[in-house]
């Protein structure tokens, strides 16, 4: 097992931030902690790294209990949100620092630093200071500095949040590719669902100090175990009531319909019910259409049969999720 958290608890300023949290990450697995700000994902990561003491529970890294070890004694390495490169050292010196602390010989340090910088394609910047290179390059130096420690687990705190959108996608793929190649266990904290879904083997969706669901991106989308997850991963039309004959009718529980699980047409068709188009918004890769039906208002993502505002159209619910007490029933 790469990482195991057992009954983790953290209280900060009298408030329970993390409550009885369990998590198991396999060797070589890439796991995201996903949630809105304040859900405790960064707190969890900082406890794994050793910057925060736990109030209860245990942390096991590579099978060893590290709960009471300081960050310098743990076999983990972290990539910080703001990269945290030392501005008074060159890129090479930054990467060499952990090796110097370990007391490696000069020749060994040189070889390893060059290899690490080569790995992130930054050998040509080895003598540059952090202030002289771009944000993306700083990020790669930080990554090299973490990898050169040959950690059992790599922790990344919102690693892409300071990069612009184009670069983010590229760095995301680079990190994923590197992770696969080195087979290193990784835990990455993010608030960006797209990032989490595209990069991870498994995603832990967190909500106020607890893990709501821990499964593959595919499962999270197709079978969200709770209403919270369904709402957080992708988006959802939420109705109080149950689905009957293609319409929402009053009843116990909550019915959720994803905008992409609705079919529209200008003519009536099997299973459809009429409604009036209220809004049509081009969203780039698709159109968002808002339709008011007798049983409620639907947001629909579609690329076919784009209607005009005010038109009468027909909408069919292809698929729905049914929740009771916030939990998925069907």
């Amino acid at each position, binding site marked *: 097992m790469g990482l195991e958290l057992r009954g983790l608890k953290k209280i900060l300023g009298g408030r329970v931030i993390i409550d009885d949290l369990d998590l198991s990450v396999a060797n070589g697995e890439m796991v995201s902690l996903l949630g809105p700000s304040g859900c405790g994902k960064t707190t969890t990561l900082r406890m794994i790294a050793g910057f925060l003491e736990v109030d209860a529970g245990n942390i096991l890294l590579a099978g060893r209990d590290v709960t009471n070890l300081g960050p*310098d004694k743990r076999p983990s390495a972290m990539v910080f*949100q703001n990269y945290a490169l030392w501005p*008074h050292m060159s890129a090479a010196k930054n990467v060499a620092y952990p090796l110097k602390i370990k007391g490696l010989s000069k020749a060994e340090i040189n070889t390893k630093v060059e290899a690490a910088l080569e790995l992130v394609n930054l050998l040509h910047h080895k003598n540059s200071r952090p*202030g002289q290179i771009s944000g993306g390059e700083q990020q790669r130096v930080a990554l090299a*500095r973490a990898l050169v420690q040959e950690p059992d687990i790599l922790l990344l705190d919102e690693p892409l949040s300071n990069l612009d959108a184009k670069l983010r996608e590229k760095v995301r793929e680079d990190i994923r590719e590197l992770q696969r190649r080195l087979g290193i266990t990784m835990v990455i904290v993010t608030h960006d669902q797209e990032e989490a879904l595209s990069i991870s083997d498994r995603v832990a969706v967190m909500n106020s100090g607890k893990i709501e669901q821990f499964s593959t991106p595919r499962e999270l989308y197709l079978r969200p175990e709770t209403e919270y997850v369904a709402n957080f991963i992708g988006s959802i039309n939420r109705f109080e009531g149950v689905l009957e004959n293609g319409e929402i009718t009053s009843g116990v529980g909550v019915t959720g319909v994803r905008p992409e699980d609705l079919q529209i047409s200008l003519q009536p068709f099997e299973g459809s019910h009429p409604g009036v188009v209220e809004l049509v918004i081009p969203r780039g890769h698709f159109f968002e259409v808002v339709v008011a039906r007798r049983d409620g208002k639907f947001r629909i993502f579609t690329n076919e049969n784009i209607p005009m505002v005010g038109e009468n159209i027909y909408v069919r619910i292809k698929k729905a999720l049914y929740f009771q007490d916030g939990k998925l029933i069907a």
Partner: protein
Amino acid sequence: MGKFFNPARLALNAAVVLMVFFILGPIVWLAVHAFASNWQYPNLYPSGLTLHWWSQVFLDSALASAMKNSLITSPIVVICSMIICLPAAYAVGRIKFWGRRVFMIGIFSANSFPKIGLFAAIATLYYSLNLMGTFVGVIIIQLLGTIIYMTWIPAAAFAAVPRSLEEAARDAGASKFTVFRTITLRMAMPGILVAIVMSFLAAFDEAQGTYLVGAPAIYTMPTEMYSLVQNYPIQVAAVFSLLLALPSVLLLGLARKHIMGGQLADGFQLK
């Protein structure tokens, strides 16, 4: 042509010339006096050049001992100040403790009143402690003026070191002490260097208190100036003034090179 008659440019040039004259004028005047055999109104030029005044200063035992005293006390004061103030600066800069603000303002308030009253009170205390006219007494008096520099500037420097940089070093396997030595102290160094320069100059320049508790047993360069101006030819005072200004010029030059021009500047993004 137009370049020469640009009024803004002309005004700027005039202002620069005035500034240069204002700053350098007195020093040039001193320098000429220091090497002139005689230079009196209404003569435009000195009557001759000589090194006589310099030899007089260096051969005069009172002046030589004043220089020696200054060069001994000032570094000792700076070192004592560092030992006392730097830990306090770290605490104030990094730890939120009760009474922190009061402490900072208290240090400031020591400098916000005329010092002569403070020195008079200290002098009475010195009599009962037998510190009048002693080196220790002079060093304590000179320490007072350095405290504000040695706490406020390094405190700000320590506070400005981002925590994540220290965490990154801890994460890389460094012990708390190593992190302090290689990251925190290193990054606060420009601030500490500035504090050292300012403290040295404050101690080197201190005359009021030093005269009060040191004279007549101990004279430093600034206190010796009092008697110099009255008892010696003006040229000797000029030589002495130049000598007094020398450490300031040297230290500021050094600080400029190491703080503004050196690699430390990169870390602070000032160039």
